[in-house]
C-alpha cells in the first residue's frame, strides 16, 4: 500500500454541496460532523474547496440553475473521487418530483456511487454511506495505480 493510498483510506476529505433541497439533510450532515455522531472518528474532514476533496456529499434535487455549477465542481475534484447522493430527493427526486424547477435526480447530472435513502436521512445512515464510499474510493485508487503500472511496463 502506497503512502497516498494509506492517507486516503485513513482521512477522506468531504465537500458538502447543497443543491436546493429543504436543508433537512444539510442539518443532519452538520450533526454528523459535530460531537454527538462525530464522523471525524473515521478521519472525515469537511472542506470548502473541491480541489482538496475526495468525497462529494450532495444534498437535494439538482435545480436547473445549479446544474452547471455542480458539473463544474465535479470536474474540479481530482481523481479518484466518489459522489454520494444524500437523501431521497438527491437519489430520485423524492417529493419534488413533478416540480418544474429541477432536473429530477443527481445521477442525471453526475455519476453517483452511493445512494443514501431517507427523507430526511438519519446521521447513522450518512456515516454508513461514508464508510461505503471509502471502500469505493480505495477501489478506484487501486485501479488508477494498476493502470499506471501497466502503462509504465508497456513503455
Amino acid at each position, binding site marked *: 500500500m502506497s503512502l497516498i493510498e494509506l492517507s486516503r483510506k485513513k482521512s477522506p476529505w468531504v465537500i458538502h454541496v447543497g443543491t*436546493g*433541497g*429543504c*436543508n433537512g439533510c444539510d442539518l443532519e450532515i452538520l450533526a454528523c460532523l459535530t*460531537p454527538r455522531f462525530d464522523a471525524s472518528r473515521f478521519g472525515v474532514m469537511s472542506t470548502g474547496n473541491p480541489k482538496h476533496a475526495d468525497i462529494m456529499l450532495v444534498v437535494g434535487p439538482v435545480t436547473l440553475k445549479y446544474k452547471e455549477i455542480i458539473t463544474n465542481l465535479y470536474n474540479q475534484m481530482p481523481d479518484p473521487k466518489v459522489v454520494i447522493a444524500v437523501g431521497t430527493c438527491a437519489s430520485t427526486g423524492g417529493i419534488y418530483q413533478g416540480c418544474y424547477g429541477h432536473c429530477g435526480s443527481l445521477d442525471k447530472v453526475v455519476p453517483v456511487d452511493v445512494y443514501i435513502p431517507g427523507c430526511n436521512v438519519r446521521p447513522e445512515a450518512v456515516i454508513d454511506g461514508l464508510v461505503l464510499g471509502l471502500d469505493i474510493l480505495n477501489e478506484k485508487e487501486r485501479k488508477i495505480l494498476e493502470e499506471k503500472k501497466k502503462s509504465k511496463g508497456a513503455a
Partner: protein
Amino acid sequence: MKTTIQFGPQHPVWVEPLRLKLTMDGEIVKDCELEAGFCHRGLEKKFEWDYNKGAYLSERICGICTQHHSTCYCTAVEGTMGLEIPRRAAVIRTIMLELERLHSHLLAIGLTLESIGFENLFMLCFRNREIVLDMFERTTGNRVLHGINIVGGVIRNIGPEMAKELEDFCDIMEKRCLDLKDMILKSYTIRERMQGVGVMSEQLARDLCVVGPVARGSNVPYDIRAVAPYVLYNEIKVKPIVETSGDCWARSVVRVRELFQSIDIIRQCIPLLADAGEDIFAKSKTLPEKEYFTRVEAPRGELFYYAKGKKSKEMDRIKVRTSTYGNGPGFVPLIKGSHLADVGLITITFDPCIGCFDR
C-alpha cells in the same frame, strides 16, 4: 484598482447556494449584487395538490423551520374551511413551535460563531442542539422533518409521561443555555469581533421592512406572536425582545435571549395539556373554498401563507412569503462599505436559509 469577487454560490460560510458579486476597492467592498434563485424548485405550483398532502410538502420548503411552515399552511387551509382545531392540538402545536425555535436559534448562533472562527463554541451549540432533537424524536418520532401537523389538528398526542419528560428537558436546557449565554455574552473576543460590524439603523430596518431577529436587533419591536397572535399566543403573552445597537452582536444577542423566552413558553404550555380535552384532531365537513391568509413568527421572522380553495380536494393557489425572503434585501446595504472579511459574518447573522428564500 477595482477587482470583482464572486462570493458563492458554493462557499464554505453558507451551506446553501447564494451568489454575491462584490466589487472591491482594496479590502473595502464598493458594490454588491445579490443573485438568488439557485434553489428554486417551483414548490408553489406543486401546492395545487391534495390539501392533506400539502402539509408534508410545506415542511419540505425549509428543513430548519418545518413546524412553522406546516402550522402556517394548516392554519391557512383550516381558515378556508372554517375549521376550528381542538384545544389540545393547539397546545401541542405551540410546544412544537417553540421547540423548533430553540433548535433553529442554537443552529444560527453556532454558525455565527463558526464564521468568526470560534469552532469550539460552535461544537458546544451543536451538542446542546442534539438534546432538542432528542426531544423531537421522543415526541414526534422524527429528528428534523416532524410530520406531526395535518389539516385539522395533529397526529401525535403528548401524554402525561411525555409532559413530565418535557419539564425535565426544560430544566436541563435552561441550565445549558445559561452556560452558553455566559460564555457568549462575557467573551471579550466575540464582542470585539462583532460589535459595530454591519450596523443596520432603525430607519433602514423600517425602510426595508426586515423581519424577525434582524428587525428586533435594530430596535423594531415586531413579533407576530405579539402583534397578531395565532394558536395559543392569545393566552401566553409574548413580549418582543429588542436590542438597540443593530449590529451583528445585537442580532446574535436577540437570538440568545429568545432561547430563554422559548423555554419559558414551553413551561407555560405544559400545565395547559392536563385540562385540554382528549381530542387532537377535528374532521372537516366541507372542502376548502374561500380565501384565507395566516402569519406565523418563524425563527427568522414573519412567515406568510395565502391559501385559496376551489371547492375540491385540490387547492387553487398557495402563496408563500418566507421570512428570509423579507430579510434578503437587508444585507446588500450593510455589505457595501464593509471589509471583505466581514461579508460572511454579516450574511450569516441574517440566518440565510436559501431553501426558504427561493422555494
